């Protein structure tokens, strides 16, 4: 009789590996165009990041003495940002992989050693939460390597620095989640975490904005050069792994190279894994048990009825119930409504950015500049609205997926469904669009003409963006995804963003001519002439936006009629 055998780490990881392989195989035949688009967008992103950073670094190289310091400071900031993002995303990912994943019942009921389970799940968490950051870091390190002639060994140095930098936040994030789950039930923890994560992300962005990174590039703002150099030489904190990583990379590139930071990174990562495993062995069993306890939640439904029933009384019963249902689901799902916090931060930053333009430094503001900023602001506002639509409107069809059996077997008209979804998403988007545009133009003290162009265009653009988001949501549904926050980052979300950017560019190109004519006339003190070309351009914008509203909605409806479940 042999002793009990336990599953090895390789056995536990096998299904994940097989699943990935099967997905790859599936993709090989059918998803060719998808891969090409994704590859192109990815490559473009890399080239863009690389190009911008390479130029910045070339500029730094030209600055004597403080050049390498500036480059090091920039790298330190980027890595610190990465570390914060990783920490947050690991906390959230660990909750699903360690406590809510569907394979846990099987693993928990099999003779799997706790340490193997910990390592397997830690690896899974690391992979899921870090792949995006890892990909984003490639052009950054490449720019440093190329700028400072890092040579063939530089990638090796980078990998040896970056791997422990991924492991450390994974272990910390996992440990935080483990502690939280031991205190709160898993569902409550998930709700709590999504709020904390979103609020933290918002704070991070806000804090970054408040630091005013643009000042770093303007040494004249500091009292004397010495202050500036002292600031650059101070590490953010000598205890931060991101600083060790910066020291190692910059040491290798500009010398003198010191292996101590790399040793520090690896030994800390190893020690953290051991400590994490110890914590896991003590707390995991209780945490996992708690994670399975359901949270009883009674709801005061009458408030909703009292508020929304009269508001939507003019609609047919089916539409009214559908809209009220969508509103309830949105505000009861923490992963969805908590994104409103981020939205608030985004709008604040947007307005702060406009406020901090050089226009407001007490100098005489040239009229031409104000008009150009006010006009180009349309593009920026459009982009912000597109990102919001990607978050809130794009996922709405996908979220209906599992319940589609009910909608399709009932006499609810699909046209009513798509229009209800359209208005429920577009009306708040429109309100936001108007707030952003009107406030910005007021801040810029734009002329009534520019205000009218801005408001008119943003209304048309918003109507189109809402329709495109819904239609692309129907063309690229993610019925299997349970977390609404993951849907916008799918392939369909990318295609939606690309199409919307093309639309915004089209509108700006069309309007550029009449706006230029107007600005030139006012600047030269000539009366503004309404030429046929001006009328035609604005008419073109109207036709383009309305086509981008009705055609996608019609196609989306047709696509939904073909859904099979």
């Amino acid at each position, binding site marked *: 009789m042999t002793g009990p055998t336990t599953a090895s780490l390789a056995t536990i990881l096998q299904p994940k590996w097989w699943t990935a392989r099967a997905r790859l195989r599936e993709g090989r035949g059918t998803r060719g165009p998808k891969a090409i688009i994704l590859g192109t967008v990815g490559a473009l992103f890399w080239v863009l990041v690389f190009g911008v950073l390479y130029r910045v670094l070339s500029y730094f190289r030209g600055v004597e003495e403080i050049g390498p310091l500036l480059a090091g400071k920039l790298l330190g900031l980027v890595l610190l940002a990465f570390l914060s993002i990783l920490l947050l995303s690991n906390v959230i990912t660990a909750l699903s992989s360690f406590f809510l994943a569907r394979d846990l019942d099987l693993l928990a009921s099999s003779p799997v050693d706790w340490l193997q389970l910990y390592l397997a799940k830690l690896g899974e968490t690391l992979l899921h939460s870090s792949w995006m950051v890892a990909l984003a870091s490639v052009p950054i390190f490449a720019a440093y390597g190329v700028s400072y002639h890092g040579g063939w060994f530089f990638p090796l140095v980078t990998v040896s620095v970056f791997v422990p930098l991924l492991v450390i936040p994974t272990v910390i994030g996992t440990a935080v989640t483990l502690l939280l789950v031991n205190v709160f039930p898993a569902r409550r923890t998930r709700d709590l975490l999504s709020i904390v994560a979103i609020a933290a992300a918002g704070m991070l962005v806000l804090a970054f904005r408040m630091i005013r990174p643009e000042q770093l590039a303007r040494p004249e703002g500091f009292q004397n050069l010495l202050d500036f150099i002292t600031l650059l030489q101070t590490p953010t904190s000598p205890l931060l792994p991101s600083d060790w990583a910066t020291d190692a990379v910059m040491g290798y590139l500009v010398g003198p190279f010191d292996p101590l930071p790399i040793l520090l990174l690896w030994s800390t990562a190893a020690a953290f894994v051991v400590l994490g495993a110890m914590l896991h062995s003590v707390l995991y069993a209780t945490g996992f048990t708690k994670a399975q306890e359901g949270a009883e*939640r009674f709801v005061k439904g009458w408030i909703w009825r009292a508020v929304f029933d009269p508001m939507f009384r003019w609609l047919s019963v089916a539409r009214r119930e559908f809209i009220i249902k969508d509103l309830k689901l949105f505000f009861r799902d923490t992963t969805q409504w908590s994104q409103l916090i981020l939205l608030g931060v985004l709008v604040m930053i947007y307005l702060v950015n406009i406020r901090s333009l050089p226009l407001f430094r007490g100098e005489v503001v040239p009229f031409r500049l104000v008009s150009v900023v006010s006009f180009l602001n349309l593009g920026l506002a459009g982009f912000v609205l597109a990102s919001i639509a990607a978050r809130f409107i794009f996922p709405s069809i996908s979220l209906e997926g599992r319940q589609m059996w009910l909608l399709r077997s009932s006499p609810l008209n699909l046209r009513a469904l798509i229009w209800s979804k359209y208005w429920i998403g577009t009306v708040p988007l429109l309100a936001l669009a108007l707030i952003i545009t009107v406030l910005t133009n007021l801040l810029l003290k734009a002329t009534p003409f520019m205000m009218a162009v801005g408001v008119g265009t943003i209304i048309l653009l918003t109507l189109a963006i809402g329709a495109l988001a819904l239609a692309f949501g129907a063309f690229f549904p993610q019925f299997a995804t349970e977390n609404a926050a993951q849907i916008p980052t799918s392939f369909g979300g990318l295609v939606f963003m690309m199409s919307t950017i093309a639309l915004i560019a089209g509108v700006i190109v069309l309007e550029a001519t009449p706006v230029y004519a107007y600005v030139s006339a006012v600047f030269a003190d000539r009366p503004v002439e309404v030429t046929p070309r001006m009328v035609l351009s604005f008419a073109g914008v109207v036709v383009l936006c309305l086509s981008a509203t009705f055609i996608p909605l019609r196609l989306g409806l047709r696509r939904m009629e073909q859904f099979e479940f």
Partner: protein
Amino acid sequence: MIHLHGLTKRYGKFVAVDAIDLHVPRGELFGFLGPNGAGKTTTLRIIAGIMRPSAGRVTLGGDDVVANPMAAKQRLGFIPDRPFVYEKLTGAEFLRFVAGLYGQAGDIVERRLDELLDLWELTRWKDELIESYSHGMRQKIIISSALIHRPEVIVVDEPMVGLDPKAARTLKRLFREFVDRGGTVLMSTHTLEVAQAMCDRIAIIQRGTIIAHGTMDELRARNASGSASLEDLFLKLTGGEAVRELAAVLEG
């Protein structure tokens, strides 16, 4: 009431449902049986208007499900095998929402909702989010949702899964009463004892084709099976009689 004419569903080269013809008249409880993957669920989902057939047509009370879906679906209550519902609605809100899809609202719905929740002993949970319901409670809510608008036809896929014995008995009585009052039920199930005890007529489907249909007596007579049970008949017809050597599996 339910008519299938040459109903076919293909997935690429694979034929899931192969030119089925079937008629279930008003006031009948019809059992739809078959081994796993035989095409039962696909057929029921086409009848419910969730999937489109590759060929053939379905009519409910004379209305074509594809050509005139609104009228056909007004008559229908569908109970799927996988109860996915809106987790963030309460039981009562879900039923109110479903009634709304059929254009019904107000006191009538509230009364009906209370009756149904009371029948399934869910009144205590009516204001709790469905995300905390057990599998059986979800099944009860879905059965209630199929009845909330007083349908003429119920199409139901594996209704007994997850129900406790008391709820299972309630459901059997409910279907019988519904049929006795002129309603029509098309039910797919693997619980052959239930099918034998409840159904007026039965069809057995295999590889997308109906291989036998009729009353229990007709099925027995056609297969020269004396007083065989439905389970024996089913295994005989679907080729599952050759039971594997269990000893080989158990001893190893």
